[in-house]
């Protein structure tokens, strides 16, 4: 998959008209994710009803890949359980880093539109940032980063 197919219609559409963009009146969990390499940042707020993500919203400053990834993520995890969301986070990170075999069973569905970032090492973190921030929020960590000790490309999923 090349870059051209990364910037395909569905990603450009989510960048232009991001879903669940904004803030929540009532949020049980929230986090801010930073990518210090480019200055991008993303706020994610969600409300857990027992174990279910019943609402989620995001806002921030970011590139198209990051914004579309965040937008699609919110549509996919809404209504899912916390552990389903964690599974998706793990699978998405693995896919972005080229560690997931897309031919074997997974739960990513149309999120595979982001598979092309694995060929663009400098853009992997753009796609991962929303998922990394969601992981932090679910684990009650309020700020996270794509770099240093928080780096999701070095940390394993169990680390907050």
């Amino acid at each position, binding site marked *: 998959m*090349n*870059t*051209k197919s*990364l*910037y395909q219609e569905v990603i*450009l559409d989510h*960048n*232009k008209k991001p879903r669940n963009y904004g803030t929540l009146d009532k949020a049980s969990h929230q986090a801010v994710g930073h990518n210090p*390499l*480019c*200055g*991008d940042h993303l706020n994610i707020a969600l409300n857990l009803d027992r174990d279910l993500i019943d609402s989620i919203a995001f806002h921030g*400053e*970011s*590139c*198209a*890949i990051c914004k579309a990834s965040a937008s699609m993520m919110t549509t996919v995890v809404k209504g899912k359980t916390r552990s389903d969301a964690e599974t998706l986070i793990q699978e998405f990170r693995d896919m972005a880093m080229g560690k997931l075999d897309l031919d074997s069973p997974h739960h990513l569905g149309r999120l595979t539109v982001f598979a092309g970032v694995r060929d*663009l090492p*400098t*853009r992997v973190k*753009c796609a991962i940032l929303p998922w990394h921030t969601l992981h932090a929020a679910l684990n009650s960590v309020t700020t996270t980063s794509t770099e240093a000790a928080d780096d999701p490309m070095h940390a394993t999923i169990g680390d907050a």
Partner: protein
Amino acid sequence: MKLIESDLKPQFAPMFDVEHIRADFPILKLQVNDRPLVYLDNAASSQMPQPVIDRLVRYQATQHANINRGVHYLSETATAEYEDSRRKLQYFINAREDREVIFTSGTTDAINLVMHGYGRKFIGGGDEIILTTLEHHSNIVPWQMLAEEKGAKIRVVPINDAGELLVDEYEKLFNERTKFVGVLHVSNALGTVNPIKSMIEFAHKRGVPVLIDGAQAVPHMKVDVQDLDCDFYAFSGHKLCGPTGIGILYGKAELLERMQPFKGGGDMILSVTFEKTTYNTIPHKFEAGTPPIAAAIGLGAAVDYLLGIGMDAIAAHELDLLNYATEQIRHLPGVRIIGTAPVKTAVLSFEVKGVHPHDIGTLLNQEGVAVRTGHHCVQPVMLRLKVPATTRASFAFYNTMAEVDTFITGLRTVQKVFT
């Protein structure tokens, strides 16, 4: 926006054959994403011509041994070539003596040398260091480290919206505690050429030494350190068609002699006992350990190559590129140029309304065009000009007008994708 006039163009343009020059650079024949490479990231690092590559190979294949110590043929040859390269660099910047030219690993290393060698000895608690908003992080962080260690203070020269230093404000920052000035010659992010000669003169009237970060200047214009009268001038080899891992610190001999060594080790000593070590004379006092000999010799070949073309011819062609690219990009809707100083090198920083620089960079790469995106290691500049990041096209003498066209067409494609 007013651009500098090229009065050199009529004399030099006929002698300057860009296609002939391009043939010297093997990497420019590369295809990227099935398109001819258009390399516009020269402010980050320039490419290497065949004569420099050949020189590295010849040294490694026929002349290599450790320098300054062996009595055998190869050691004597390597030492002579290494010192010959130092004299080439001396000539290149018109230093008074070759011992004023110190090989470092790059600009960052050179600035750190001055911080440790001069700063830690002569700057104390309550003293003030003047830097500018335009500085690269490499001319900020070492001085912050010193300020923290000594309890010294950093004062910062502001800029206007065009990205020019406010010289009046610079002059107002001086007081009896001012002990050092660090200024970059040319802004890596914006291309602004700073009026360093008058700034140096002003500092000297108050007895304050000045370090110039010349990393973005020496590849693009004639630099004469005696004419500038700067106390220190730092630059890198890899932005000058030379290898990575090598750079130069020029320093006035009387200052270098008063300074303490930066790194301790072999070559920088005259004698060592466990009771007392006597340091070597300059420049060797500052060249501890085995240096990157091949890279130093390669850098000598690189300045030979550049002088063969002529720095005035290089400056004239790059000005043509800048003027043409500036004119072309101004015709694109929603594009804003960041950095509009009247005197600039061929650096074009810009933002495109509604498109993040990283998306621009990735899509231009798809067209074979290499640009830099991000904060360019100048976060204070980005903060001041209220842009989180920019896209930067930076030109070299081997770029062509046709490449500018490819770049502009690429930007049109980016805009089409994002409408």
